[in-house]
């Protein structure tokens, strides 16, 4: 095609500012709000919040440098989130997309969450179009790949996962302005994944580890979840929930905050049944929204010896 046209109609570049007030940038960019919301809405996760604040600071400075004409390369923003199930990785990834959007590092700020099956096909020629479709959907936002290590199956040398990996690596390198990739999964398996895939290791700049929640944090998470749904524990229920958390943790398939969410769903079911069977007259709002101890202690978790069962 002929040489670029319209050059004369392009707006003159705004002159680089002589000084930038980072405090003010912090507030006007909306980063302050995102971080405050993160602090408020998510219980615990202190190390994660610290890392996000550090990353935000880096990006603010980077942006200020760019505006002064000091930096030219887009910083590498691809990240890895490691931690056990239900520790908040997906939730934080959503906030991260918002943060990057407000800082102007991504144009749209949406999150596309996928696993191996969304990227890898079943037969020859199936994988590349599938991976590209997903990449196109994620452009302008964040691509979140859950349990990323399933992409790599060294035991099967014909595995189509390798094809998806190659396309991903290429886009992560060449289109850093167009999308940010967050890889997520359990810590140990992610470590092994990075060891055997140096391409990913060298393209991922930020590694954030999500610790398990303490019993106390899980109780606060339970209370917060209930509050959002306009329910509350009575005193006995709070004690029962604390007991429940300690027992549940010792049982298989424990998934931190997600286990709590599921337990609360079942608790509400039992509360509704209790009200339905026992109510003699009209019920007021308080009765309809109070969870009592027996709604929790009826859980099978209390019947099972520790370390057995599914925790239903």
């Amino acid at each position, binding site marked *: *095609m*002929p040489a*670029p*046209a*319209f050059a004369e109609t392009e707006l003159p570049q705004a002159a680089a500012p002589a000084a930038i007030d980072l405090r003010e940038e912090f507030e006007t960019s909306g980063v302050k709000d995102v971080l405050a919301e993160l602090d408020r809405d998510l219980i615990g996760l202190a190390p994660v919040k610290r890392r996000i604040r550090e990353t935000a600071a880096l990006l603010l400075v980077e942006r200020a440098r760019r505006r002064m004409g000091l930096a030219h390369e887009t910083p590498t923003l691809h990240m890895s989130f490691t931690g056990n199930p239900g520790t908040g990785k997906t939730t934080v990834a959503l906030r991260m997309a918002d943060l990057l959007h407000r800082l102007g590092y991504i*144009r*749209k700020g*949406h999150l596309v969450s996928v696993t191996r099956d969304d990227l890898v096909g079943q037969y020859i020629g199936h994988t590349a179009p599938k991976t*590209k479709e997903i*990449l*196109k*959907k994620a*452009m*302008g*936002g964040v691509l979140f790949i859950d349990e990323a290590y399933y992409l790599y199956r060294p035991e099967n040398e014909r595995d189509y996962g390798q094809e998806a990996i190659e396309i991903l690596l290429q886009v992560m390198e060449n*289109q850093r*302005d*167009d*999308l940010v990739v967050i890889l997520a999964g359990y810590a140990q398996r992610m470590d092994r994944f990075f060891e055997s895939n140096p391409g990913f290791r060298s393209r991922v700049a930020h590694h954030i580890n999500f610790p398990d929640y303490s019993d106390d944090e899980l109780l606060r998470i339970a209370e917060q979840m209930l509050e959002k749904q306009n329910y509350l524990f009575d005193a006995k229920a709070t004690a029962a929930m604390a007991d429940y958390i300690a027992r549940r943790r010792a049982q298989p398939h424990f998934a931190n905050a997600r286990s709590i969410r599921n337990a609360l769903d079942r608790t509400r079911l039992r509360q509704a049944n209790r009200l339905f069977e026992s109510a003699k007259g009209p019920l007021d709002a308080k009765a309809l929204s109070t969870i009592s101890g027996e709604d929790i202690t009826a859980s099978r978790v209390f019947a099972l010896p520790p370390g057995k069962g599914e925790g239903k």
Partner: protein
Amino acid sequence: MRITQGAFSFLPDLTDDQIRAQVQYCIDNKWAVSLEFTDDPHPRNTYWDMWGHPMFDNPDAAALMMELNACRKLYGDRYIRVVAFDSSPGWESVKLSFIVNRPDEEPGYRLDRQEAAGRMIRYTTRPYAADRPAGARYG
């Protein structure tokens, strides 16, 4: 002879940044964007070949630019256009269409005169490029 079809075709060719901005405008209006290519530049040839599917749920123009670059790699010697469809009336209709790639050499059209009954003359235009078989017309 420079082919002028679709929007912007009397302007100098759009740069990639300008194409991207136009495509983003289409997407922000909820129009589905797609790419089509051809080596038959006759203005009555409305059926160009599709490059992949129309894009219904890609919020950012980078997605189309990625496809455009792939299309140029294979068919960089032909005409490529962006077409934007609006489905809000209940059917798909073209809202915007513009050329984003053209052959280096555009030989233009020959005007043929056919003498018919009486002193009538029929006129028709034929792209010189169409003298060669499809697929081998440019470059």
